[in-house]
Every structure is written in C-alpha cells, then in structure tokens.
C-alpha cells in the first residue's frame, strides 16, 4: 500500500466520523445562521434608514418640503413629512422615535440624541438653498435668475496617479480571506489538536503506527479535517449568495478573479501550515489539558500576525517589516494577500513565499511525525523536543 492510499484512508475516516458527529451538525447550522445574520441584519437596518421622517413646526417655507423630497429621492431615500401644531407636541414625537429630525421655522434642526451626519448634511444644504431662494425673491429676482446665480459652477478635477478602481474590492477579498483563515484555524486547528491528543490518550496510536507511518497519519488527519472545514465553508457560500440576491445586496465580483485565487491559495497554505504546527504541539503533549494550554499560547501567533497584517501591512505595505513578514511562514498567509491587495507585489515574491511555505509545512510534518512516534513511549509527562526526537529516530 502506498503512502497516498494510507493518507486517503486516514483522511476519509476523519471525514466520515466528523460529518456524522453532533459537533459538525451544530457548527454547520451555526455557520449558516451566522451567514444569514451577517447579510440580513445590515439589510434590515439599511431598509430602516431608507425612510427619512421629517417633522415640521412653526413657519416653514413652502418650497422646503418639495426640496427635501427631491434631495431624498436623489440619494435613494424616501421622505415622509408631518406638520405639528406646537413645538412640545413635535418634540414628543421626536422622543418617541416617530421622527428622525425636526425642522423648526425652517431654520433650526432638532435631533433626539445622536446626529445623523448624512441626514444633517442633506437637510442643512436644502434649508440654506431654500433660504437663499427666499432672499433672492425678496430682492426681486425671478426663480430662473435665482437658480442661475445660486447653482455652483462645476469644478473639474484630474488625478496624476489614479487609484486602481478594483483596489477596494481586492482589499475586501484579502480581508475576507484573512478572517476566514482565522476562523478556520480557531475551529479546525483545534479539531486537529484534539484529534491527535485523543489518539494518544485512547492509546490507539500504537495500533495505528504499527500499520501506517506517523507522517502519513498526520497528513491524512490534517487533510481530512481540512476537507470537512472547506466543505462547511463551501456550504456557506451558496447560502450567502442566494440570501444576498434575495435582499438585493449582490455587489460581489468587482474583485479581480485572480485576487480571489490568490486569497484561496494563501488560505490553503496557511491552514495547512498552522494545522500541522498544531498537530506537532498535540503530538508533544500528553493530556488534553496540556494541549489546551499550549494551544492557547500557539493560537496567539496567528492572531498577532493577523493584527500585524490588518494594522501595519495595510498602511505600510512596502516597508521592510511587511516585506520580511511576507517570507516568514507564520506571517506570510496573513501579510502577503493584504500587501498584494493594497500595493504591487512582484510575482517572484509570491512564488518565493509560497515555496517557503510548502517546504516549511513539509518540514513541520516530519518533525511532528517524529514527535508523534517518540511520544508513544510516554504519556506521563510532556517530553522535551530532544527527548522525543532522540527516543525515536524514526525514519518512517
């Protein structure tokens, strides 16, 4: 039996056992609910904001309501206005959230608490224009003359170095990849660790290693658990697209397809590297509690790298720390996609970083396999690296 078949069998066992488990069913449902919530809740809030409710009290110019309606329509909102007999009644309506803003005498805006900057800008501009039109009429100007006077002259603009129109979409895709990688590492990196520890604590490891090499066993485990994770992600994707289409929020593929390809590549490379690193940690530990404490420390590494990518590499993509971080396996999956989105990254940089990732992943698998075989000998206390590697100079 060749290594590929052994890896396939191990991976298939992981897939079938996990898909059947309650954890998979609950986490899939949770993921789908999270996707639905992420799309539906902002959409509901967006619907709420689409109606601008304006209260009018006092001496309101006749042109104000049609002018506000015109501006609202131009910005995609619907305006509802209501006239109140007195200021206290109008303010009560404002307090009861029946209104978004109250216009007093056509000259004052009253808010309940928080000022909506967008509405404020529209209302102020409209009020000032109506006021100017009133003053122009008082000076004897016709409506056409007033408009000719008040309409601002168009100012032309040009850019010496116009930004990439797809930059935002690419950046969004890179961020999506970054957060998906973090999420997958939290969920499935933990599953790899737990799976490895359970094989040690249930002592089935000795039965397995008498049949299959530790390297094939770990590789199959990472692939199997990774496949379950990808399956969940892929399950979430059509649900997200269908829901977004249903609520008219499909603005997705502005991003260049190749960017999405790079994001997926770095997701896979990063997931593989960190999963085998987690497996190596679990191979060294003896009990679940030890694994959990060590994993907590190790989980800080991708978190730190993600924060570095988010707050440093985004702002200074071509500075030397970001460039160096692109070639370090623990930071490359986070930093490189973000840099590629906001700056120009040479293809040789991507190729070199990917090659370093692959070699590092293979090396970590080998080290983890040695630790795994060596750690069979002891379940009492976590061995030091030199102990396990020395105890089993396994060539398997």
């Amino acid at each position: 039996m060749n290594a590929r078949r052994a890896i396939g069998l191990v991976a298939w066992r992981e897939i079938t056992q996990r898909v059947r488990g309650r954890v998979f069913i609950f986490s899939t449902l949770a993921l789908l609910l999270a996707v639905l919530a992420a799309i539906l809740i902002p959409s509901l809030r967006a619907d709420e904001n689409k109606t601008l409710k304006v209260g009018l009290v006092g001496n309101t110019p006749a042109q104000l309501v049609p002018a506000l309606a015109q501006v609202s329509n131009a910005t995609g909102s619907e305006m509802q206005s209501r006239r109140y007999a007195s200021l206290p009644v109008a303010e009560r309506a404002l307090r009861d959230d029946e209104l978004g803003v109250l216009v007093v005498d056509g000259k004052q805006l009253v808010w309940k608490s928080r000022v909506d900057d967008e509405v404020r800008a529209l209302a102020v501009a409209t009020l000032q224009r109506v006021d100017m039109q009133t003053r122009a009429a008082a000076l004897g100007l016709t409506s056409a003359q007033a408009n000719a006077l008040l309409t601002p002259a168009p100012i032309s603009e040009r850019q010496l170095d116009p930004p990439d129109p797809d930059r935002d979409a690419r950046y969004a895709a890179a961020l999506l990849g970054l957060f998906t990688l973090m999420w997958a590492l939290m969920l499935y990196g933990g599953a790899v660790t737990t799976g490895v520890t359970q094989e040690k604590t249930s002592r089935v490891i000795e039965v397995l290693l008498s049949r299959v090499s530790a390297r094939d066993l770990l590789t199959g485990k990472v692939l199997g658990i990774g496949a379950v994770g990808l399956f969940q992600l892929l399950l979430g994707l059509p649900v997200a697209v269908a829901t977004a289409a249903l609520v008219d929020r499909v603005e997705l593929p502005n991003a260049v397809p190749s960017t999405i390809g790079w994001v997926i590549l770095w997701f896979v490379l990063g997931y593989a590297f960190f999963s085998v690193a987690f497996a190596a940690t679990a191979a060294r530990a003896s009990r679940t509690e030890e694994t959990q404490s060590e994993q907590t420390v190790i989980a800080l590494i991708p978190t730190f790298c993600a924060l570095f990518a988010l707050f440093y590499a985004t702002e200074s993509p071509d500075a030397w720390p970001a460039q160096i971080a692109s070639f370090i396996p623990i930071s490359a999956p986070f930093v490189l996609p973000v840099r590629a989105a906001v700056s120009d990254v040479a293809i040789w940089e991507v190729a070199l970083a990917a090659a370093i990732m692959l070699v590092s992943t293979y090396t970590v698998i080998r080290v983890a396999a040695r630790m795994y075989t060596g750690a069979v000998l002891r379940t009492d206390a976590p061995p030091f690296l030199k102990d396990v590697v020395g105890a089993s100079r396994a060539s398997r």
Partner: protein
Amino acid sequence: MTNTTGTAGGRRATVHREPNVAGATALVRTDARGLELDGLTKRFGQIVALDGLSLEARPGRVLGFLGPNGAGKTTAMRCVFGLVVPDTGAVRWEGRTVGPQEWRQFGYMPEERGLYPQMRVREQLDYLARLSGLDGRQAATSVARWLERLGLAERADDQVAALSHGNQQRVQLAAALVHDPELLVLDEPFAGLDPLGVEALAAVIAELAQAGAAVVFSSHQLDLVQDVCEDVVVIEHGRTVLAGSLEASRAASRRRYVEVAFRDGVTWAPQITGGRVLAADPGRTRLEVDASVDPEHLVTLARRGGELTRFSFEPPALSDLFREAVEG
C-alpha cells in the same frame, strides 16, 4: 514483495518476488526463517532497555516471550514494528530487514490497549484492515469472519466504548488478526481476561500457528505459557538468558524435580548428594536434584522412609526454568 502460497490462513510465505537489477521480478525460493531480532541495543538516556537482545520466532510455532517487569519485552516488541528504532542491531523477517511492507503483514496487540472509543466495531476493524493493505471487499469479508469467530457479530454495529472490558479485549485481538498477519505479536494478551476468555484466546493462538503464522506473546502467567507455547525466550536486563524449544530447554536443564507422596503421613527429609529438599511435609516431600541423579536410587531411598503412593521425577516446569534463568 512476498507472494504467499495458498493455505488455510492465507499465509506461510515461502516464495518471494524480489525485484532484480533490471527491474523485472524473479521467483526466489527461501526457507521460512520467520522473525529474527539480532543483537538489539537501545538506551533511553541512562537506562539500558535492550542490551544485545537476540531471538528467533519461526512460522507455525508459538513463542513465549518472558522476563521480569522492566526486562525490555515491550521495547523489543516495539522494535519489531519500528515504533522504537534500536541503537544497534537488526530486525529481520524472512531474512530481510523489516520495513513498511513487512509491518503491514504483521499483527500487533500492544500492552497499552487502544481503539477509537466512539467508532463502531465493524467500521474500526474495516479501517484497520484497509490500512494493512486489504481492499474493500477483502476487508469486509475478513472483518465478518473474525467478528463471527470471536463472538462479536452481534455487537458489530455498537461503539467500542459501549462494550464490556472483555469484549473490548476481543475487538483488540480482532484488530491484530483482521488482515491475517504472517507474524502476530501480542503483548500481555491474557491480562484482564476471564478463564473463558483465556481459553478462547489460547485456542485462537494455536489455530493461527497451525495455519502457519509465527506467534510471539509475552505473559507473566507461566502455567499458561507452558500450555500454549512450543518455544520460549527469557530475557532480563535487555539480554537473552534462555532461548529454545520449551521441551528441549526443560530436558537440557541440569536439574530435576522429585515429588514423593507417602501413605501414612510420613515426613521424609533425606540428605542427598547433588540435591536438596525443597519441602518436607507430612506425607509429601519435594526435592530438587541434579539431572545425573539416578531416579531408581531415589525410589529405593524413599521406600526406606515409608510406603509410596506417588513418585515423580520431572524436568523443571517453565516457572522453574524462568526462576533458574533469571536468578542464575
């Protein structure tokens, strides 16, 4: 690559296909040499686990692998499967150094029992059979056969964790046997079994050896080993102190054990050159004598003590051999 000749158990490897220099295969006839551990040494820090250990286990025979706790039995067994790599020495099967190809033809029941507790019995055995190289259909057939043979057929779809300790032991044994191994290595297989379980396992071991497998097992239950084994190896401090066929080892011993029973509760404690009294109770005396002592002479002496109802002059039992070998 091994090409097995057809037998009841699907084993008895006597013909091998060895790739030659040109890449073609040629049939090479060899003697079935079985398992050889040749001068194994292994240190764990300051502890010497194996110190030049050698042994041989032949196809079709059962080898009892004995030694006090900490003698190095488990380490030696792990060396067979590459779980521990010896510092020096070699492990061979049929004359070849063992590797992944051979490991998949071996069955192993480790001292530390372990299976996936949440996995169903049939699935678990099927998975292990396939990891050992069987295809889907072969695995299904073999799993069904061993489940039936070990009385687990009705529990096939239960999770391992739901089984009794005894049934889990049987599943563990099935896991070692499911791919019809040519070599079976069992570390303390009788530990924790009830008398019926012991009987069933002893029968399975005998059956496997009869079908041509080499069987090696360790145990502290020496009476049991004496009943089941044809060959025996005793080790201490990682070194072989006794090896060979059980009967030949017993016969080769320089000691004999004499048991005499008297009708009238006589207490007989003779002074014998080349021997000593082990026990002299009323009506029963037990002696240890040199193998050169003439039994007829002892009978004559005993008759002077009283009327005999029983006289036996036997080579040492395995427990005696073990004590002699370990205590020197």
